[in-house]
């Protein structure tokens, strides 16, 4: 089943390009380490999901590009065309002359309604091209004005017009140090609006990916392009095809639907994060070998200790011993930041994947008390290797990973709001103090829900 991607703003368009590029170059890669027939099935499955075919055989991304400035969209279009492997549709983009000035309210209340019809028409045409349509993948940042403001507006419209289709928002969490002075305002407005209209928020933190680039990839001068490539790699390893069942060699038809059913059925718990392993530069990859046991042991410790990457994992964190009175243990584990999960999905790709043992993820102590591991944990597999890694594992987790960053952003925004800083920039475009208060309330509720697992 097909997914229509909506790329919004500078960030969304740049990442979108990298994602399509990663997906297509992986499916055409010769390093898949599997039979020709299996490779063909894998390619077909990937193409059906993200690309449509045109007469001359070049795949066209099922995507709609939206930005208020033409510069990034033009760059994106030409980069895709230059790749020769794929391209964007000719009439799939919408852009204007003037941006949103990092003001969420301008994107949401001015640009959004003004261009609603054109944007929704583009999306409708793209949806109609799909023989079988599964849902939307909406890529945006949450700190800026265009991506976040129009993104929230468009998601809301999609919820109204395609209420039965799935909606996953891919959100870029801004650097803690911040590029934009009002990024915390923009963030809380984006998150609280998306919590109402989206089915799942797949969140990537710029800080974490920056560290991966620096520590694991050994990149000295880190550019946005580097960061976006790491991000696209993570997304690709989630969305590339996997087998539909343990003993089956058929590829999963509706991974977006299956993923949501596994991870985000509860309306109060919609935040997902991704951890992958291994991740390294091409130079070191040549000298490394991996075992499934080793990879999964690291990935599990990354999950329970809330580590953002393979390096610097705190091995002292242990799941709370079930059965013991938790009083003394609790405080100890709190200090060590044990990360409680609601639901986890592990995706394994590569050689000997059938032999991989995921029992470590089925420990009831890892999960909240109201879900059994059999309901909370799933594993997807495929023998085909992803990208250049012979074996790789990725974890999509609905857990307490994001409670702390969310709490911090809400706290910072509240401090600014309490001193009424920059509020007039929002009220003049129709976002009242009442709307801010609503956003604070709903996000505080989210934080509380995640804390009380």
């Amino acid at each position: 089943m097909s997914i229509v991607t909506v790329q919004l703003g500078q960030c969304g368009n740049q990442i979108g390009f990298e994602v399509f590029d990663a997906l297509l170059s992986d499916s055409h890669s010769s390093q898949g380490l599997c039979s020709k027939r299996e490779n063909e099935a894998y390619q077909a499955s990937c193409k059906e999901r993200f690309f449509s075919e045109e007469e001359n055989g070049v795949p066209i991304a099922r995507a709609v590009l939206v930005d208020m400035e033409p510069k990034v969209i033009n760059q994106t279009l030409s980069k895709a065309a230059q790749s020769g492997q794929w391209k964007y549709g000719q009439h799939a983009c919408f852009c204007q002359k003037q941006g949103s000035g990092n003001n969420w309210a301008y994107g949401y209340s001015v640009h959004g309604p003004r261009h609603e019809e054109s944007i929704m028409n583009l999306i409708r045409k793209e949806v109609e091209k799909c023989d079988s349509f599964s849902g939307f993948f909406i890529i945006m940042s949450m700190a800026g004005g265009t991506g976040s403001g129009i993104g929230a507006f468009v998601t809301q419209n999609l919820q109204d017009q395609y209420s039965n289709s799935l909606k996953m928002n891919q959100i870029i969490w801004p650097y803690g140090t911040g590029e934009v002075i009002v990024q915390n305002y923009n963030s809380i407005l984006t998150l609280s609006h998306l919590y109402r209209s989206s089915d799942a928020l797949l969140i990537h933190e710029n800080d974490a990916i920056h560290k991966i680039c620096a520590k694991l990839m050994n990149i000295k001068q880190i550019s946005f392009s580097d960061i976006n490539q790491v991000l696209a790699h993570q997304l690709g390893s989630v969305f590339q095809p996997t087998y539909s069942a343990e003993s089956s060699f058929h590829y999963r038809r509706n991974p977006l639907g299956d993923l949501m059913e596994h991870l985000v059925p509860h309306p109060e718990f919609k935040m997902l994060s991704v951890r992958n392993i291994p991740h390294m530069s091409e130079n070191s990859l040549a000298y490394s070998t991996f075992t499934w046991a080793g990879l999964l042991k690291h990935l599990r410790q990354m999950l329970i200790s809330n580590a953002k990457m393979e390096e610097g994992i705190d091995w002292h964190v242990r799941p709370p011993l079930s059965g013991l009175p938790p009083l003394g243990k609790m405080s100890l584990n709190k200090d060590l930041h044990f990360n409680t999960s609601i639901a986890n999905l592990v995706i394994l790709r590569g050689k000997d994947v059938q032999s991989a043992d995921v029992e470590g993820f089925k420990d009831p102590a890892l999960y909240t008390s109201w879900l059994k591991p059999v309901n909370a944990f799933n594993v997807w597999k495929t023998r085909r290797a992803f990208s250049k890694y012979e074996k790789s594992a990725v974890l999509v987790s609905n857990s307490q990973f994001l409670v702390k960053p969310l709490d911090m952003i809400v706290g910072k925004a509240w401090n600014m709001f309490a001193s009424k800083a920059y509020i007039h920039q929002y009220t003049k475009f129709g976002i009242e103090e009442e709307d801010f208060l609503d956003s604070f309330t709903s996000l505080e509720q989210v934080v509380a829900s995640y804390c009380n697992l």
Partner: protein
Amino acid sequence: MGRRRQRVDLAAGARARALPEAIAALSRSLPSGPSPEIFRRAKFDRPEATSALWQLLYSVLSPLPAGNALASLALEVQARLVKSALCSQGYPRLALAQLPEDGSQLLLALPLCVCFAPQGSPMKGYPAARLKAQRLPQGLTLALLQCEALASPGPPAPHMEAEGPVDVRHVQWLMGKLRFRWRQLVSSQQEQCALLSKIHLYTRGCHSDQSLGHLSVTEAEMLRDPEGGQQVSGAGASQNLDLAYPKCLHSSCTPGMGPRTFWNDLWLVCERPGLLPGDWAAPLDPGGASAYSLLSPLRALLQTLEHENQRLEAVLAWRRTELVFWRWMDTILGTCSLEVPAAASQPTFLPWVPERGGGELELEELQEAVERRRAAWEAKAGGCGRGPEWSAARRASREAVERELGALQRCWEQDSGPAQPHGPHRLVRREDGAAGDQDLRAAEVIRRLRSQEACLEAVLCRLQGQCQQELARLVGALPGFIWIPPPGR
């Protein structure tokens, strides 16, 4: 006597308002929810109250889910069942056993029936001492005491409590899963429709039969892949596709085709599980329940909770006012107390209560008696099996069955009319929307089949009811036997 009645009347007058309230609360808390008016009529032995009271006693003794075939048993059968139950529990009132027209007698039997009732009732746990204080006949009090001894572990706890408290977040989680399942179902139905329409469009003019114009899915599949057409999966898939189209367009449960919401459809699926397509039988999670099996506990839980809430509220109200009710019952007892001596001479069947120790001798005697009886019965039954009467009866009943079947078939053929149930039909795409004479309207066929189904179900129900009545009659004819219907029927 006169003084006593006067006193009671005064008391009743003072509580003129409390009594209707008490009776209303009681009737709400009883499983069948009888009208409070019945109690008043029964007190004055009004004939119209009799049947309602028999039904009430019967429903208290064997509370069955509404709509069950057993609930519609004939009144005499119900009366007989109640009488034998009361008799075997030691209820001594001669008047009850002989004259079922007497409303106040029936009313007096109510507390006892409630005590025997298998489910929790407001009067459950009503102390035997209280009944004794009301000068109930000795036998009744004794039977009541025995009942309490038997039921000492208390009423069986509702089964949901056995699994511990349910976290509401878990229920919300399951609900969310169901919702996602629903959305997947909608999108796959839409996909099937789109593909079918495409196949019909692309193969236009390919079919040798000009009136059809296009190929069916199976034909297209066989042309595309002549070898694979033999495979089970290929054939199955194309068949499903052909079936899915009319289902999508005409079934009363049409995902994505109308303004219905998830909740409407969920309700529809709950009420009519037959509508559910096969995809839903797949488990929601490895080792877990399927979407449908997930629905029914949710629904059952909800209904049980609602029902129990109502009953509990009524019981609370009843508890506050029950004293009034018992005083009123006392007045009824007072008017009937003249017959009490007669009851002493009436033999009653007292229930056998298991005792540890001294009762063993008695037990052996009873077992011997049972063995003797069984042997006698078997001899009698065996004799019937070989006799000429038996084969005649068998022949007669076989002929009756054949007659019935013939009648049913004739009725079926009459009903079916022009659009009979048919062999395989094919789905044909029409641009103009005009239908030919030979065309089959899916909606019409479905409606017809549904009505036939309902008709057959009604016949089945009727026959089942007859069988059960017959069984009940046979069992009821034996004194001292109580027929216990199978659980859940």
